């Protein structure tokens, strides 16, 4: 038997193997989806039950009398619960947005510098930046609190923004540097020869190409700030300054039985993140640099 005659067997067998793996992957993904989606579905279902229905045993799998009362209460500024919730929401939005904007403003030039320029201490600085992320966040709780007290920032949103930046920036810089590393340097060089200054080359050519990276960074910073609990809990004590995670927790430890209200609040809290993803995901297009250089 000739070697050529045996050949077709090999790809056929390997394709079957691949199919096996593909199915295993699909089953795994479905399980993961159930694992993550089921609690969220339960949260949504509970949020539209009445307080009584939510406490029933055995549980009502599907609410018999769905109601939006909890949402109405939370979103009504006249109601004291609603007023608190909306204020927490606004506080969280402010802190997270400021963190995100500052993170992007600082991370973009920093990452670009790490990617493009060689300067003394570049390697050291880059690892110093990452060093921060090698320790669990709690370790810095007390030192940062003392620092904030010295700076007079305790009980201000500034303390949170600063803290979130110290956590978010290293990763943001690291992430963005990866993006800039992948943008061929010849593009900037071409722009500079075509008449652009170094800054114009960055602004007109490189920046637009790093939009997906900037958006990924922004989403990451926003979500991290939006969900953070420990620092918000430690640095802020005045009720009207609390952010959502702390606010919801504190608020409902006083009203332990209002499960639909708690679930509705939790659901509302996830809305901005979901909206952010939906709005920005179209910028996660395939590699923007395709066609720029010969490979």
């Amino acid at each position: 038997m000739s070697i050529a005659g045996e050949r077709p067997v090999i790809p056929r067998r390997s394709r079957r193997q691949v199919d096996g793996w593909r199915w295993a992957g699909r089953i795994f993904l479905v399980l993961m989806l159930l694992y993550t989606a089921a609690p969220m579905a339960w949260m949504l279902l509970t949020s539209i039950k009445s307080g009584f229905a939510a406490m029933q045993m055995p549980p009502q799998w599907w609410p018999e009398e769905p109601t939006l009362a909890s949402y109405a209460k939370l979103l009504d500024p006249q109601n004291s619960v609603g007023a608190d919730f909306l204020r927490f929401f606004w506080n969280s939005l402010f802190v997270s947005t400021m963190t995100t904007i500052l993170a992007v403003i600082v991370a973009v030039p920093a990452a670009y510098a790490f990617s493009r320029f060689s300067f003394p201490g570049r390697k050291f600085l880059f690892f110093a930046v990452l060093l921060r992320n090698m320790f669990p966040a709690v370790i810095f709780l007390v030192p940062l609190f003392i620092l904030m007290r010295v700076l007079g920032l305790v009980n201000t949103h500034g303390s949170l923004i600063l803290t979130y930046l110290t956590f978010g920036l290293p990763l943001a810089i690291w992430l963005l540097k990866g993006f800039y590393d992948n943008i061929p340097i010849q593009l900037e060089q071409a722009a500079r020869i075509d008449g652009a200054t170094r800054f114009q080359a960055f602004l007109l050519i490189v920046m637009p190409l790093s939009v997906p990276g900037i958006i990924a960074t922004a989403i990451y910073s926003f979500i991290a700030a939006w969900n953070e609990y420990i620092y918000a809990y430690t640095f802020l004590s005045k009720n009207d300054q609390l952010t959502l995670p702390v606010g919801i927790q504190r608020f409902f430890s006083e009203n332990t039985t209002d499960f639909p209200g708690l679930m509705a609040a939790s659901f509302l809290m996830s809305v901005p993140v979901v909206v952010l993803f939906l709005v920005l995901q179209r910028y996660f297009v395939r590699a923007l640099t395709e066609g720029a250089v010969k490979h």
Partner: protein
Amino acid sequence: MAHVVLKDLVKTYGSFNAVNHVSLTVNDGEFVALVGPSGCGKTTTLNLVAGLIPITSGEIAIGDRVVNDLDPKDRDIAMVFQNYALYPQKSVYKNLAFPLQMRKLPREEIDRKVKDAARVLDMTHLLERKPRELSGGQQQRVALGRALVRDPAVFLMDEPLSNLDAKLRVQMRSEIKRFHQDLKATIIYVTHDQLEAVTMADRMAVMNGGFLQQYDSPAQVFAHPVNMFVASFIGSPAMSLVPLEATTADGETVLTSAEGWILPLSARNARKVAAATSNKIVLGARHSTIKLHKSAVPGAVPAKTYTVEPTGDITFVQAFLAGAIVNISVPPTVAVAPDAAVWLEFDQDRIHLFDGETEMALNAD
């Protein structure tokens, strides 16, 4: 247009010298080809002239200005990159328009120049496409077009035709040559295709290991290579180089091989050998200057054929001679078998002699 002067140019990466004391002058309107093997520093030299990387030492002047400290945008140059470097987010039209926009030309003028360039490069129908929607050859033409829309003092081209198919390459070669003649443009053109260099350039600069080896007209470089590197790099097939030893027999200088044969030298060649630093001599000869005999002839030396490659109008024969491989060309009517004994006759007036120690060409005076 302007002339370009490189003076003792050095570029060092760490302890590695990518460009070593290169000095050369490109005259106003001259087409200079920079050739050499991969990694010899061609792109680096071009980048230094463009101002994209800092000079370690030396001086670059474009026109009458020393441009060492000028930004690329102020050097009045256009460049075609080895890997195209097209702006991926911009259409072909905008790629071509960008250099003109940066120079704040009026919109109508930009439009006219872009469309002119597109017509010359036969890409009018591609103007609205993005680079990723183009073939490799089309991308290369856009890269070329982006340089041609402008009217700079100097054009720098880094292997602008390397990715085109053979037919398009020949066509673009004449386009660029035509363009050079029409505009009297000063062009520094990097290529490792020596045929491109020979056919297009007024002068060629041969580089190796960061050093400039020879800078002269293609005809001169071909006829009088200054050292063994240039001799073997320029010409296809390469010049054959046979290591021999100089001795004296009956008062005459001759070359002897380890195989025992003796090659008498003309008086002029004997004078060249006398100038060598040792008795190690390398004999160089191009394929067309060696005569192949199938039987022993006075003055011819014995060799053994290795491969025979008919190409149609000429047949190339490789033969072993004194441990080296020698390229010979014969008319297609001559039948030669591989592994056959042959005798090679060298033309005393057209052989090259090199110093076996310094690898430099030997001169009679």
